[in-house]
C-alpha cells in the first residue's frame, strides 16, 4: 500500500514521563490507582411537566451513570416536582452527572445533598401470616405498621433509611416473603437550607496559582 510519510519511527521518539488515569486525571505513573466510587444523593427541582422523568432517566441510562434509585413527586409548588437520585460513581462521575442534569432544559436546580441530609424510603412488605404476633413484633421493632392482614398474609409498611429497610427485609425473611415494593430514597436537606438551591463549586488555588484539590466530604450513607 502507498501513502507512507518520512520521519523518525515511533521507537526513536522521546516519550513524556507522565500518565493519566482512566478519568483523565494526571497521576504518578508509579502508583496504579483506580478511583474509589462514592454513593451520594442528588436532588433536582424540575418543572412539573410531562416527559421530565423520561428525560432524566434517559440521560442516566444513555450516559451509563450507575443509578441506584430515582424517585419523583410533587412539591410545595404545583408547577415544580422534585427528583431524588441515588448514584454510585467515582468523584468525576458524580460531578459529570450533576452537570449533565443541569443541562436539561426543564431542570431548575440541582444539588448534591450533604451526608447528614434526611433520607427516607418507604417499603411495603407482604409475608406469610403463619405467626401473626411474631410479624407484629418485628414490625414494631422497625417502627412499622401492619396495613393489611388476612389468614394467609400480613403486609407491613416500614419507612426509614435504606439500611434500616434492608435490615428489616433480612429480619422478615424468616416468615417467608411473598412480595416487596420499595419507593426508593427521597431526601431533604436539614434545617433552613434549601434542598435544591444553586451550587457551583469553584476550585481553589494556592498563592502561586497552583490548584489545591477541592475537599470532598466522604459519605457514610444514611
Amino acid at each position, binding site marked *: *500500500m*502507498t*501513502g*507512507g*510519510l*518520512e*520521519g*523518525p*519511527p*515511533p521507537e526513536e*521518539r*522521546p*516519550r*513524556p*514521563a*507522565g*500518565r*493519566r*488515569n*482512566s*478519568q*483523565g*486525571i*494526571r497521576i504518578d505513573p508509579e502508583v496504579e490507582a483506580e478511583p474509589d466510587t462514592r454513593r451520594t444523593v442528588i436532588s433536582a427541582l424540575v*418543572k412539573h411537566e410531562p*416527559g421530565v422523568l*423520561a*428525560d432524566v432517566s*434517559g440521560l442516566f441510562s*444513555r450516559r451509563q451513570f450507575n443509578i441506584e434509585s430515582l424517585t419523583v413527586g410533587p412539591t410545595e409548588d404545583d408547577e415544580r416536582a422534585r427528583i431524588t437520585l441515588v448514584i454510585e460513581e467515582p468523584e*468525576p462521575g458524580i*460531578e*459529570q452527572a450533576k*452537570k*449533565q442534569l*443541569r*443541562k436539561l*432544559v*426543564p*431542570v*431548575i436546580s440541582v444539588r448534591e445533598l450533604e451526608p447528614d441530609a434526611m433520607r427516607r424510603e418507604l417499603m411495603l412488605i407482604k409475608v406469610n401470616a403463619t405467626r401473626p404476633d411474631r410479624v407484629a413484633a418485628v414490625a414494631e421493632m422497625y417502627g412499622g405498621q401492619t396495613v393489611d392482614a388476612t389468614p394467609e398474609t400480613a403486609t407491613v409498611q416500614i419507612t426509614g433509611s435504606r439500611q434500616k429497610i434492608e435490615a428489616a427485609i433480612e429480619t422478615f425473611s424468616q416468615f417467608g416473603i411473598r412480595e416487596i415494593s420499595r419507593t426508593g430514597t427521597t431526601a431533604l436537606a436539614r434545617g433552613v437550607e434549601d434542598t435544591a438551591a444553586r451550587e*457551583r463549586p*469553584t*476550585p481553589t*488555588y494556592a498563592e*502561586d*496559582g*497552583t*490548584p489545591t484539590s477541592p475537599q470532598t466530604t466522604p459519605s457514610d450513607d444514611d
Partner: protein
Amino acid sequence: MAHDSAGRTPMSERAASVTSPDDGEPHDEREAHEYEERATASPVTTGAEAVIRALENVGVEYAFGVQGGAIMPVYDALYHSDIEHVTMAHEQGASHAADAYGIVAGEPGVCLATSGPGATNLVTGIADADMDSDPMIALTGQVPTGMVGNDAFQETDTTGVTKPVTKANTFSSNPDTVGDDVGEAFALANTGRPGPTLVDLPKDVTLAETDSQPGPARVPDTYEVQERADDDVVRAAARRIEAAERPIMLLGGGVIKGDAHEECRAFAIDHEIPVVTTMPGLGAFPEDHELAMEMAGMHGTGYANMAITHCDTMVAVGTRFDDRLTGGIETFAPDAEIIHVDIDPAEISKNIHAEYPLVGDAATVLEQLAEAVTESPKATKWRAQCQQWKSEYPMAYQTPEDEPLKPEFVVEALDAATSDRAIVTTGVGQHQMWACQYWTFTEPRTWVSSHGLGTMGYGMPAAVGARLAADDDQEVICIEGDGSFLMTLQELAVAVREHLDITVVVLNNEYIGMVRQWQDAFFDGRHSASEYHWCPEFDTLAEAFGAKGFRIDEYDEVAETIEAALAYDGPSVIDAHIDPRANVYPMVPSGGDNGQFALSEDQL
C-alpha cells in the same frame, strides 16, 4: 449587559441578541415594534401561520425540507411567506443542508419534514448537528393529537426518537403557543452551546384557528449561560501560562461557533504560543502561520501530535476532548496542566481533567485571559523544538510517474485554484482526511464536515446548505468519496434545479477506502465488503442530472479540469480517479498514544 455575582447573564437579556444585533436601541422595544408591525399588517390566523411567523420574526431566509400529509398546513402557510423553501430529494439531505447552513451562517438552519418517515429520515442529520453542536431547528409534522398513541398512519414518537440527539425538543399541543414554541426552539438552538432543537407539530394544532401572535424568541427562564469565567480561576490560569515552558493552544470547533477566532489568534501571536487545532477547529487559526502546528489526533500531523504530547501547559478552547483527538486518555498530554475554556460546564473534566476550568463564552474568556497574562511564557526553546518537529515530520508525499494519481495532489490543486474563503464540504472517509491534511485552512466557517458522527453522504447536501449561506464570491467545493457520494448524490438534482454553483470532486478509489485501509492494517488484508466490483461513472451520472461532468485520470489533467469546473456556472462533478491503494498517514490507531503515531502501515 448586567451580570449577577456569578457572572451569569440573565437569559431574558441574552435572548434578545438571538434575534437582533446590538445597535444601542433597547432590544425588547425594537423587537416588539417589528413584531407588532408584522402582526398588524397580516395577523396570524392559524397555528401554522404562527409557526411561519415565528420563523420570520427571527429573520429566517431559507428552509430545507420535503412535503407530506402532516406538515401540509405549515407548507400552506409558507406559500405566502418570503422565506425561501428548498425542496430536497430526501429529508436526510434537508437536515444536512440546514446543518451546513447553520455552520456557515452562524444562525440556525431550518429543516422541515412530515411525520413518520419524514421525521425519521431527518434523524441522521439531527444527530450529526448534535455531535458537532451546530445550530439547527427541525420542524416535523405529526398526526392530530387525538390520534397520537394509536399507531395512526405515519405516526412516530418523534420527540421520543430525537430526545437523545437534540439539545431540546418539544411536542407542541396548543395553537395559541405553537409560535412561541418555535421561537423558543430557535433561541435555544442559537444560545450558549449551539445545537439542534425540534418542534413536533400535530396537524390539528397547525390547522386550528388562533389569533395569538408569536412574541419574541426567548429561551426558557431555566436556561442559563455563563458568559464570564471566574476571575480567581482566570488569574490562576494566567500565572500558569506565564510560568509555562512548553505551552500550546488547542483550538476546537467552539472557537469558530463562538466567533472567538480573533481573540484566540491575538492571544497566541502576542504570547508566541504554538497552536494545534482539532478537526472541527480547522480555520480557527491560519495554517500558513509560523505558530500553526495544524490538526492533532488520529490523522493529525506528526508535529501537532508531538507538540500535544510534550506540552506542559495547554490552553484548550471550545473542545470536548473527543477520542479521535485524545487517542488513549492515559497518554494524552500527560505532562500538561490543562486550562479548559468552554461555555458548557459539562464538557470541563468530562474526558480530560482540567486544573483550570474556565466556564464562559470563548471570546469573553480569551479577553479576560489576555488582560490577566502580563508576561509571555519563556518558550524560545520549545518553539524551536516545534519547528524542528515540523521539519522532521513533513507532510510531503511522493508522486511517482508510474503510479496512479495521488489524492493529496488533487486536494492541493483545488486549494490553489480557489480563494482563501472557499468553503470545503466533505463526505466521510479517507478523502475527508486528505481534505483536512492538504487543504490549508485560514478562515473560520470554511470547513464544513461531519466530525463527531462521521456521516457518509454529508458532503453533497451540506454543499447545498453552505452555498445558500455563503457569499457569492465564496466558492463551494465538495470533496467526496465514491462511497459517500453514492449515499446522497440525489441532492445533485436540487443543486441543478436551484442553479447552485457547487464543484463536487469525487476522490474515486473504487473502494470504501477507509475501511479497506483498516482491513489492511488490522484484519490481515481481508477486504470484506469494502471493494466494489462496479462503480458508476460519476461524470456521466452528473450529466444525466443536468450538471456538468468531468473526469481526471492523469496529473496533467488536474489543473485545467479544475479550472474548467470552477468556471462552469452551476453544479459540476469531477470524477477524479485516484490511486486505489493510497492510505492516510500519519495515523494514531484507536485508543493509541498520540506521540507514537504511525507514518506507514508497518508502524501500526
